[in-house]
């Protein structure tokens, strides 16, 4: 499973970055992207879920590996 950030929705609130700086990175405008390929483990999945639940723009999702 992977965590994804929809760049058309992200408005740079920085909530995901504050919660999980090891999972997300932000550019100088505050727009977030997953670090690396966004691959999640059983260990990091709960944190990714928390990022999904706290994003005010609903820009973060968790997808199956074979999803587009």
């Amino acid at each position, binding site marked *: 499973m992977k965590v994804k950030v929809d760049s058309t929705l992200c*408005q*740079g*609130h*920085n*909530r995901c*970055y*504050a*919660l999980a700086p090891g999972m997300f990175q*932000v550019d*100088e*405008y*505050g727009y977030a992207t997953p670090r690396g390929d966004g691959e999640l483990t059983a260990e990091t999945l709960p944190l990714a879920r*928390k990022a999904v*639940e*706290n*994003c*005010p*723009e*609903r820009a973060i999702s968790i997808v199956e590996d074979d999803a587009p």
Partner: protein
Amino acid sequence: MAEPVQDWTTDYDIFDRAYIKNPFPVWDELRSKCPVAHTERWGGSWMPTRYEDLFDIARDVKHFSSRNVLVAHTQPPPEGSELQENVQHYNVGAPPITSDPPVHTWARRLILPPFSVKSVARWEPETRELCEHLIDGFIANGRADGAADYAQQIPPRVIASMLGIPKDNAETFTTWVRGFLEFGATNPELGRESMRSIFEYLHERIQERIATPGDDLISYLLAQQVDGQPVPEGHVLGTCFLILVAGIDTTWSSIGSALWHLAQHPEDRAKLINNPGLMVNAVEELLRAYSPVTMAREVASDVEYAGCPMHEGDKVLMNFPAANRDPAVFEHPDQVILDREKNPHIAFGVGIHRCAGSNLARMEMRVAIETMLRRIPDFRLEDPDAVTWAGGQVRGPRSMMLVWP
């Protein structure tokens, strides 16, 4: 005195004294009875209170323009007017908060980098030192006004440092900003006068930076280009106006409300003292529960929303604070739960107008709370009934005596 409100669904009054002090029951009533309320007071407006409605309206920039974000007394400049004319009338807008796309898009990109998490971190040591210094000034007295002597002192000085303008003027900025936003909301003449003073002052500082650039936000803005052209001076003026106005009242209100809560909740103070790692989450929760800012939008073209016929030019009060207490989204919305797991609050708005200064506001809140708790772990309200609140479009305590052993 205004007539007392009989029916909040059709005649709400955001300046009602009791409402300002405790708006939460009204929001609960409106959310369940009439989620988009209306009033003829203060020029007339619509007011959504449900999270989903605020979310939708904020993101529908086609129908809901930001050209007027205050209920009273500001107008964008006439199109094609010259800067000189604008400065004379002190009427250049406050981009990008008062901009719609396409101007909004570049105007926003211009100001995001100096307010990024990384840029804001540069101001943290100075903010901490300022908080320590303020506390040094009153700790021995055993009492202080947490709003006027502490919260109110922090944002204007940090903003002044960022803009590269003298911090000695912080009291004056506060007077102007309150005149413009707080008192100006119900006193248009004072509002316009305060606005003129701010524009005049910033216009002078900009001329100084054009002559002698420095390492400050005004110089940074003047040095930027858009489509290969320097950013127009009038735009820089409007943006500096926004940075000064939007960064003072709002953050100070948030710090004040957070202290108001903590002063009455020793268990939350203890949690934060014993577990400093909780602070980041706690700041978000305090922002949710005591969101200070209600922006406005202006209907750009006739639209029916939630069965309400909204006409071009109608005002919509973006009650983000009410959205943040909507039980449809937040469990136990009226409880402050510092380690709340699910908190997609929209205290800083949602969509393209997400508060550009949110990282700065968070940093100031966190540092102000941390420093207070470290220096004075056991503060409480001297008299809860004596606390006074400002309301309208920015809500927060204005006088709040704290005492400690």
